[in-house]
């Protein structure tokens, strides 16, 4: 029984609905306890009162060195949470002093269990309800829901029942004891399982012996100690410089030091430690690819030494660095977009990757989809959650009589996790093929064609098994090009890759040579814009439209909403009638230091502009067509886009488009300037300002521009683009 407010540590490691977390923490806080809420995923809960503090461990982990990621990326989810928790003194100190430890979900159980081994007096429970009960008990020993005495029940169990339970417990203990010599012989099935178990155990023991021998071979201990000492010195020196934001000098220390280290692991450790630390400081590493290449070399070394599991962990560590969201999504510029060939070159040198993605091909080529005159096509769709771009496609297909069946990423989830899939591919372990066959074969046997919407893990999983005679089409929209997943797809089992725009195709082919090699193992590549029904957008404008700009969709940093804020700020200075509507879910909290800095700046700016009445935040709206009635100018301020559907929808509504020359593609042959009419596109804010002022100069000018935009938009209407997409999907000409 505690006289002061109980101290409570709550650990969560799955992504809960924000409103639910706020509600839960509010209920915990209402008990009067002091709550330390530790979430592995980033959360923003707002002000929950003085007695609640929040800590996000993935933010703390951003700068952790490669050794941490090599341990954690392949660990079971429960252990991964513990690895985060044990490294964080803020958390472990509060856990040691807590009266109640709560795991809010199954994944957090092990971490809380471990914390409870150190703090032997705290209550340790799992679940929200159990947490609240434990707090109540810590406060005054009372149950929040008093357990009633059953009036009609016996206060004490009848002696007969006590005896029965005692006999049952004794019998159960006897059954659990080692079998007596005269026990019946095991059944043939049990004998077979036991034999298989022994074989597996022997194989594991032998593998362990090999690994130990290999580990024992390298350098003499003295040389090892010297190298370790050297690594320590160089790491400290470079990190110290980085901490003072002297990144160039830190990188120079690493560049020079790498050559002095004798083995791949230490070289990867030195370069990777600095690169991760730079990311955590909100700085894009200047020698990112060198660090990645050193980690990949370490992975290959591990593979050569017979340690495939460690090799995969190292490979994933390299991929985490190479495709860090902070670098490509949150920094406003992407080294991959600037130089895809260098990324491809580094990846091409990785033996681990080569082994994972070695083209397995298919035993039989895809059968042609039967012509419509024979029977309607059967289309399987596997989506990765976001189905925003499937609606019009599905409507058209079903309208034409096609049968459509869908699966989601959740349907394909494997209990062992995605890294285990890669390990299985590396070692040719058949379990993964068996598991995926079970999940996918029915769909593959039924469908003429399977469309994988988004080139994510789903595409990797599908390409892990031979699709038989079913045609496989993968659609890559945009963000996937900056992730590792397309790098892991076996494209020899894909018949067609559809890109939404030419500039995305260019980028993807640049970083994915597998799409450009040619021959029967290379899929056909096509470019078809998104299929969207524009009819609901065509509605009469409201009088306010001419001076109203809109940005539809602002939730990711790639939308660069601050660019649009700058535009409207300048317009408003010119004429106070100009306003900007922000439509869609709010900007998500960044997962990187770079992202969080951007989000903080955005919130500050938008608050100021809202106060001035320059910006109106509408949030998520189901009926975008109705919102667009207020809009005279549709803005695309993004750093990267495949198409930016909102521009097309806005244009169809009669809003005049102002499209930033998306910087990720501005230097290439294709980009916003080639996708849209050139006069829609503005290189900088200044040019956008001039365009808005020009097209809204007077009512007649704006009306003329509005009509022209609506007319131009018809080129992307479902009626125009739909047949082209269906042709790519079904692998036949639109007339068939």
């Amino acid at each position: 029984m505690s006289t002061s407010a109980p101290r409570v540590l709550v650990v969560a490691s799955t992504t809960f609905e924000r409103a639910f977390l706020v509600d839960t923490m509010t209920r915990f806080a209402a008990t009067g306890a002091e709550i330390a809420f530790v979430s592995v995923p980033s959360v923003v809960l707002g002000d929950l009162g003085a007695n609640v503090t929040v800590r996000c461990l993935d933010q703390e982990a951003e700068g952790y060195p490669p050794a941490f990621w090599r341990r954690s990326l392949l660990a079971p989810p429960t252990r991964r949470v513990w690895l985060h928790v044990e490294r964080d003194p803020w958390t472990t100190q509060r856990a040691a002093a807590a009266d109640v430890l709560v795991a809010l979900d199954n994944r957090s159980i092990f971490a809380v269990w471990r914390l409870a081994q150190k703090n032997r007096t705290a209550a340790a429970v799992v679940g929200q309800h159990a947490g609240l009960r434990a707090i109540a008990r810590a406060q005054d020993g009372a149950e929040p829901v008093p357990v009633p005495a059953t009036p009609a029940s016996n206060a004490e169990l009848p002696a007969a029942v006590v005896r029965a339970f005692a006999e049952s417990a004794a019998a159960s203990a006897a059954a659990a004891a080692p079998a007596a010599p005269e026990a019946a012989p095991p059944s043939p099935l049990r004998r077979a399982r036991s034999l298989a178990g022994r074989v597996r155990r022997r194989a594991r023991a032998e593998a362990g012996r090999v690994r130990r021998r290999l580990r024992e071979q390298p350098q003499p201990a003295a040389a090892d100690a010297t190298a370790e000492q050297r690594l320590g010195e160089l790491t400290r020196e470079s990190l110290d410089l980085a901490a003072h934001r002297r990144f160039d000098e830190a990188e120079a220390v690493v560049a020079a030091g790498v050559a002095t280290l004798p083995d791949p692991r230490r070289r990867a450790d030195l370069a990777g430690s600095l690169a991760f630390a730079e990311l955590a400081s909100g700085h894009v590493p200047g020698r990112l690819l060198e660090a990645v290449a050193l980690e990949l070399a370490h992975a290959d070394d591990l593979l050569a030494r017979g340690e495939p599991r460690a090799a995969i962990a190292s490979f994933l560590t390299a991929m985490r660095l190479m495709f860090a969201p902070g670098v490509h999504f949150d920094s406003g510029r992407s080294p991959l977009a600037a130089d895809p060939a260098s990324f491809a070159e580094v990846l091409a040198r990785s033996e681990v990757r080569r082994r994972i993605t070695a083209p397995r091909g298919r035993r039989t080529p895809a059968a042609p989809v039967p012509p419509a005159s024979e029977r309607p096509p059967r289309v399987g769709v596997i989506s990765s959650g976001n189905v925003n771009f499937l609606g019009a496609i599905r409507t058209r297909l079903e309208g034409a009589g096609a049968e459509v069946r869908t699966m989601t990423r959740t349907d394909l989830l494997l209990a062992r996790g995605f890294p285990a899939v890669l390990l299985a591919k590396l070692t040719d372990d058949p379990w993964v093929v068996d598991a995926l066959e079970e999940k996918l074969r029915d769909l593959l046997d039924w469908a003429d064609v399977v469309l994988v919407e988004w080139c994510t893990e789903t595409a990797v999983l599908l390409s892990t098994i031979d699709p038989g005679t079913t045609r496989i089409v993968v659609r890559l929209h945009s963000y996937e090009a900056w992730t590792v997943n397309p790098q892991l797809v076996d494209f020899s089992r894909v018949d067609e890759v559809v890109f939404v725009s030419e500039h995305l195709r260019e980028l993807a082919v640049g970083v994915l040579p597998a799409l450009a090699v040619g021959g029967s193992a290379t899929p056909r590549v096509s470019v078809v814009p998104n299929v969207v029904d524009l009819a609901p957008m065509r509605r009469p404008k409201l009088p306010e439209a001419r001076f109203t700009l809109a940005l539809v969709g602002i939730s990711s940093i790639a939308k660069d909403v601050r660019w649009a804020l700058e535009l409207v700020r300048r317009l408003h200075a010119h004429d106070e009638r100009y306003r900007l509507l922000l439509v869609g879910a709010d900007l998500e909290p960044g997962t990187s230091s770079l992202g969080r800095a951007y989000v903080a700046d955005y919130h500050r700016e938008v608050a100021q502009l809202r106060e001035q009445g320059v910006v109106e935040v509408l949030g998520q709206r189901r009926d975008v067509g109705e919102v667009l009635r207020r809009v005279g100018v549709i803005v695309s301020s993004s750093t990267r886009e495949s198409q930016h559907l909102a521009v097309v929808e806005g244009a169809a509504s009669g809003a005049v488009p102002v499209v930033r020359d998306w910087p990720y593609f501005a230097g290439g042959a294709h980009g916003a300037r080639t996708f849209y009419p050139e006069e829609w596109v503005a290189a900088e804010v200044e040019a956008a300002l001039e365009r808005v002022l020009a097209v809204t100069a007077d009512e007649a000018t704006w009306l003329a521009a509005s009509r022209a935009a609506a007319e131009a938009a018809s080129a992307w209407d479902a009626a125009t683009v739909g047949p082209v997409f269906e042709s790519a999907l079904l692998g036949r000409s639109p007339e068939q």
Partner: protein
Amino acid sequence: MVHDRTRRLLFLAFGFPPALKSSSYRLREIANTFARSGWEVTVLNAEQAMWENEFGLDPSLLDDVEPSIRVIELPLTRGDLETDLRSFDEERALHPARWLAQWREANEAAFPEPTFGGWRDPLERTVLALHDEQPFDLVVVSCVPYVSLAAALRLHEERGVPFAVDFRDGWSVDVIAGGEAFAADSEPGRWERRVLEAATSLWLVNEPIAEHYRARYPELAEKVRVVRNGFDRGSVAERLPEPATAPLRFGYLGTINFKPPFVKAVLAAWREARATHPLLADATWHWHGNLGAGASRGSSEVAQLLTAARGDGVSYGGPVPKREVAALYESWDALTFMVIGGAFMTSGKVYECMASALPIVSAHEPVHDASTLLADYPLWTGVEGLDHDFLVGAFGRAAELAVSTSAEQRAAAREHAERFERSRIMREAVAWLEQRLAVGAGPEGVTR
């Protein structure tokens, strides 16, 4: 029939009050009816700590338990519902899903029921010990758990005590997906046949399930009786509802065992109905009932969806003590009746909903046993599964009914439900069983 002593009933009723379960009301009514019929009733239940770990307790359920009933709460546990991490070993903490799978497998080694199979041995020993101490004349088993059947069967086989099965939703019928739950030659299939051949009678909650058993065991058809659930008089306000005024209050009371896509679908329809129907502009929707057990109690994905829908006037208020149910219905203007399953499922809540005399919006499979009951209920807005547009319209129609229904229509609605009053149903069922016992293997035939 003349008895030289009071007849003694052993009632295996796991989930008996104060456990807060959807089955608790039925179990209470069975025990009360036997007690009122002159039987000396001994109820076997699991201890309260276990029910607290599951859905919780409702002390008010004890209000109406006949004082003569003796309740023995056995120290049985469910390891899967344990929330105290200090009772976990490292392996369970590290691999909770693997532990659960192994625990279920171990339970099934004793009896083919993954959650309760492990209770078989202590349960069998208990019923034998209690009978040997003071003999019973009849055993009634209410399932689930099915493992209770093993105990009743053993007592029957070793001591000759007749037993009756309150099978409720049955076992070999899949009430969720429809069809057969397991084959006749499977382990549970063999158990079911053995038990039902020995049982004096079996009760089922609706005609489709009863028909399944008549068809599966034609030779046992005469043992089968439909004993529907019903509504408790105390759960319904005596006064009929008045025409409502905005803001309208919709309510749902019942077990929230829906999958997230189901909840997303009804919430989406509610959101649109609220945005488009003037009567619903400021309406609220209050969900009550059990939501998640053990560690997931209060934090399931569905709980998250409901919390996130707060902006749409949706709230989740937890389970409601039995003695507050009537007042809760009185505070609402319309109901949502949501239930899983299809033709084989009824749900006990439908009777209470109908007795409320409130408009009802249905979200369930159109071919559903509840539909057959609701079809003649005058304030029903129909059912078309989870069809979005239909549900949007149904919310609107229910709102219109809430403000416009006359006192006569309300009275007709209440009258429609009257035949499903629970004590009436149970009196008839117990009398039928007593008659069977008198004719066949009654207490006189018991070997002692």
